[in-house]
Each structure stands twice: as C-alpha cells, then as structure tokens.
C-alpha cells in the first residue's frame, strides 16, 4: 500500500536529483515543495477554518460564561455555533492526517534512494522508471550531508545531527501554533482541549520520529514546516494583516 506512494515519490526524487546538481538535500527540498503544492488546497482550507474559528471566539467566550458549569451543554452549544458558521472543528487536523501516508511514503522513498540495507535496495531495483531521463545508474543517491548520513538516524558520532530533530520539533510547534485556532479564555470544550493537546503532541511526535528515522526525513519535515509557516504569513499579508494569530487575545 505505502509502496504505491513510495515508488513514484522515489522516482521523482531521482528525477529531481538528476536535474538539480546531484544534491540529495536539494532533491528532497524540491519534492517537499511539490508535495506542499499538491496539498495546498487542504492547508489553505485549514487556515480559512482557523480564521473563522477566531472570528467566533467572542461568541464562544459568551457561551463559556453562560454554560461554564455545564460542560455537556457548552459542547452542544459550541457545536451548534460551529455548524451555523459552517466550520468543522476538526478540520484543522485533516491536512496533518493526509500528510501521514505521504510522510511514510516519502520516508520509504528516501530509504529506497539512500538505502541502509541491501534488501531495501534490491526491492527498489525492480521499480525504477528507466524511461525517466538520466535515472539509470543514479541509485544509491549521495547520502552524505554536513557529515551526516541522510539514510541513517541521528548518531552520537555525529552529535550535530541531533540538531535536526530539534529543528523538526521547533518548526512543527511553530506551524501548529500558527495554524491552530486560539482557545477562548479557559476553553474546556472537546475541540478546545483537543487543539491544546495537538499543539504539544504533534510536534513531540514528529520530533520523536525524527530521532528514530533517517535524517533525510527530518529534512523533509523541516522544509515542509517552513513552507507551512511562510504560507501562513503570505496568506495573512494578502488579507491585509488579518491572520489567524495576529490579534489573538489568548496568546
């Protein structure tokens, strides 16, 4: 299943590698940009949803005052409010969830192109699109980057490689913070708690995965997160400073 995503991604990686100076990190960056472009409608929808959520914050605060002691009623009223506004409170999670199969596919694609075990490489040998220009003889791609091996997890021998999981954690947190609707006051509703957990758990999860997986995947995470952050600010500028976080009272 994942291989049906991984093989095309791996071949795209080879193509970018061939045309972008035989630099593995640049090829991963190019592939990341392409993936971000493909999921752009989703991420823009996420930002739109977050903005609407922010606009509802005064109303949510009022509901909290009114039904603060009755959690069940509060949740019902909030859901009603969201429904009227045409917002799915879990809509912010969708781009993240859709990224999971792509992420695992890309991870496997990197492991095929910068393999650490011969079985991975042998498996991929049957799935190279030889009709793509210049891909014959490319595999395995150059794996060295700043003294690290892009096909292996961070190691103590290259202690600086642990900077990558740290950067993944930081950029994931920032992106999550920007794209998650701010909570209204002491929002104890389901979606409010879930969003608060997401802000912590998702970056933590990506950081932990970066510790265990090939550093090439960390490169993807970091570039993808930076693009997400840049996208947030670009959309905000285009809307004349009206951003999700710009005037958040909860920060």
């Amino acid at each position: 299943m994942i291989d049906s995503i991984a093989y095309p991604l791996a071949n795209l990686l080879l193509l970018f590698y061939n045309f972008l100076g035989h630099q593995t990190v640049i090829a991963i960056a190019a592939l990341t940009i392409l993936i971000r472009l493909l999921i752009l409608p989703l991420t823009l929808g996420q930002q739109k949803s977050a903005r609407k959520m922010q606009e509802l914050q005064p109303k949510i605060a009022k509901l909290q005052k009114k039904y603060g002691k009755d959690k069940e009623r509060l949740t019902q009223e909030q859901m009603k409010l969201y429904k009227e506004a045409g917002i799915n409170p879990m809509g912010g999670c969708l781009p993240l969830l859709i990224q999971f199969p792509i992420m695992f596919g890309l991870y496997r694609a990197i492991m095929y192109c910068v393999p650490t075990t011969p079985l991975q490489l042998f498996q991929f040998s049957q799935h190279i699109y030889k009709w793509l220009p210049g891909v014959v003889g490319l595999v395995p791609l150059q794996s060295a980057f700043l003294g690290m091996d892009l096909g292996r997890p961070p190691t103590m021998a290259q202690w600086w490689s642990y900077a990558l999981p740290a950067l993944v954690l930081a950029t994931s947190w920032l992106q999550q913070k920007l794209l998650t609707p701010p909570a209204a006051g002491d929002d104890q509703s389901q979606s409010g708690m879930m969003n608060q957990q997401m802000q912590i758990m998702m970056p933590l999860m990506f950081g932990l995965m970066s510790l265990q997986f090939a550093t090439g995947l960390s490169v993807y995470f970091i570039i993808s997160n930076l693009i997400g952050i840049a996208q947030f600010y670009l959309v905000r500028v285009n809307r004349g400073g009206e951003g999700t976080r710009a005037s958040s009272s909860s920060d």
Partner: protein
Amino acid sequence: MDQSWMRRWPSALVVLALLLSASGCTGGAAQPTSWTGLTVVGERLYAADLEQVVALNVADGSPLWTFPDDPEGEKRGVFHVTPAVGGGCVIVASQVPGGGFFSQPRDIVWALDADNGSILWHFDGAAGQYVEGGAISGGVFVIGNSDGNIYALDVESGALRWVFETGHRVWATPLIVSDIVYIGSMDRRLYALDLSDGEVRWVFYAEGAFASTPVLRDDTLYIGAFDDRLYAVDALMGTERWRFPGENWFWGGPVVYDHTVYATDVNGNVYAVDAETGEQIWHKPLDVPVRAGPALTGDGSRLFVGGQNGTLYALDTADGFMPWSRESEGQALSTPVVSGPVVYDAQINGPYRIRALYVDNGREVWAYPPVVEGQE
C-alpha cells in the same frame, strides 16, 4: 463521538509513532535486512545465518559448532555477510541493534576459530553496516563498510593495518590477487589498492555503483555495475576493454570459465558473454528478480542461479538450457556454492536456511535446519 477518545487521540498518535519506531520501521533485527552468506572449505560449510554463525558437515548438514551458542542470551547481533575463511579462522560480521532513542547499532567483525567457533578477536571500529563479507590474503583481512571505508585488519590479531576512504557505501566483497585488492564502491568506482598499505594503484570509473566482486581471467577483470553494464577492465592499468549492456543492474558477481563470462542482472537475465570481445553468446531470461551472481561447477558445464522466488535454477553453460529447477518457499538471494557433486544455496524467509542439492538432478541431499514434517 466518544469524549474520552476525542481527548486522547493525539496522545494515541504519539504512542502509535513510538510503536512504529520500535517495530522495525527503522530496520531493526526482527526481519532480515540482508541474506545469509555461505562458504565451503573442504568438508565444512560455514554460514553467517542471521542469529548465528554455523559450521556444518557438508556430508549431512549436521552442525559442528555454532556462534554464539545462545543468541538470545549473548546478543552478538545479526550475522549476514559471507564468511571469509583462512589462517585457521572464520571471519564474519554482525550488527548489534541499538535500543532506545540514543543507542545506535554496533557493527562488529568477529574472527572465530575455524575448529570450534571460539572468539579469537573482534573489531568494532567501523561506523556502518557490513553488507558483504571480506577476503583474506597474506595475513590481511580486507572488508568494506557502509561508512564508506575499506578496512584492512591483521588476521592474527585483528589490529587495524590501514583504512581507505571511498565516496560512498562499500557493499562489495574485495578480490585479492597477490598484493592487490580490487574492490568496488557505491561511489561508482572500482579501486585497485595495494594490500600492504592501501595505496591506490588505479581507479576505474563507471556510470553506476559497484556492489559486486570482480572476477579475474588472465589480466582482465570482469565486473557488473548499477548502470546496467558488465565491464571488462584491464587489471594492470584499470582501463576499460569492453562493456556489455544488460536490462538492469548487475549486482551479483560474474563468473568466468575458459572464454566465457557468465553474469546475471537483477531482472533475472542470465548472460553468457565472450570474454575477449564482450559479444553475447546466449541469454536466458528467468523472469524472476535475481540478486546474486551465478555459481559454476568445477568442470564449467553447469551454472546455478538463485531467484527471489526461492527457486534455484540449473542452466547448461553451452546454451542456457535449463535441465532442472528446484522451488522453495523462501528467497534465494545469496550466491550458491558448488563443491564437487553438490550445490548449496541459502534462503531467507523460508522453512529452512540452507539446502544441499545434487548438481546433476537437483535432488535434495539435506536441509538445515531439517524441516519437521507438518511444520513446513
């Protein structure tokens, strides 16, 4: 929707990620990441057989010794590489998996007493995995590593003699002839190094990675590469004599007999090529992925090729005719070994690890470990 689940699902994702990390997504020891390697010397067959190194009696497949005796308790790691035998010792390598987020796997070369499997020395100075075995000559053991280095160790003591750095992973077994080491690297180069000090004699450049062992005939080396070509290279000068195009990578090492070179590509094509001119003599598609190179009988009359489908194919060298093939439920990714009237092949993910078959008709002599009736 259930409220408690709503609250907990991000936490559940973290747990899922941790489970995935621990379950072999990073290439842990639970599943083979490479293949069993075989070497036959005299009446003994040595195999780096995942959990253990085993020495078997070639007559009946009975174990003579194993290392370690208790794989679970001793935790020596996973053994893959083809054992090198010489100077009274068997030299293998293993990878001991790391545990936890900050513990890295350790890759170790082990020299074992060929008679009883006891440890003579070990070397853990490399930073990457050993994929293929090394070669012994003149008291020196030479092996490539995924850290991009070629290591030369003293066979007696395990002391490091020299290290040669290449530009990529080294997954090929070297060929040592007199005082020269010929070894290919994933950096697309075939190196000729001085055995005594690792100094470069010459370098041959291809357009794809080298992961196989060259074979020498007279003064010509034959070796395949990941650019889908089989090369003939002048062994003295390192210059190209001819190149032969295949359909896909040449991963397994070729063999040569008289005036013919036999090679396989990973698409499962077996080629017989004129050693002088590089012209194709015959071509036999097996229609199954083939990782390893062929093995040849002593009289050069028959070839053996293992397929990913677990089948061992016998081919006549005269015309590629297939007199027999023998199926298995595993994967035959190692180069078979022929010794006298018997061919030995190793399997992964199958009911047994090693089997011995008669060269003439493919009838089974023995299998190791023996398959228990009803458990196959």
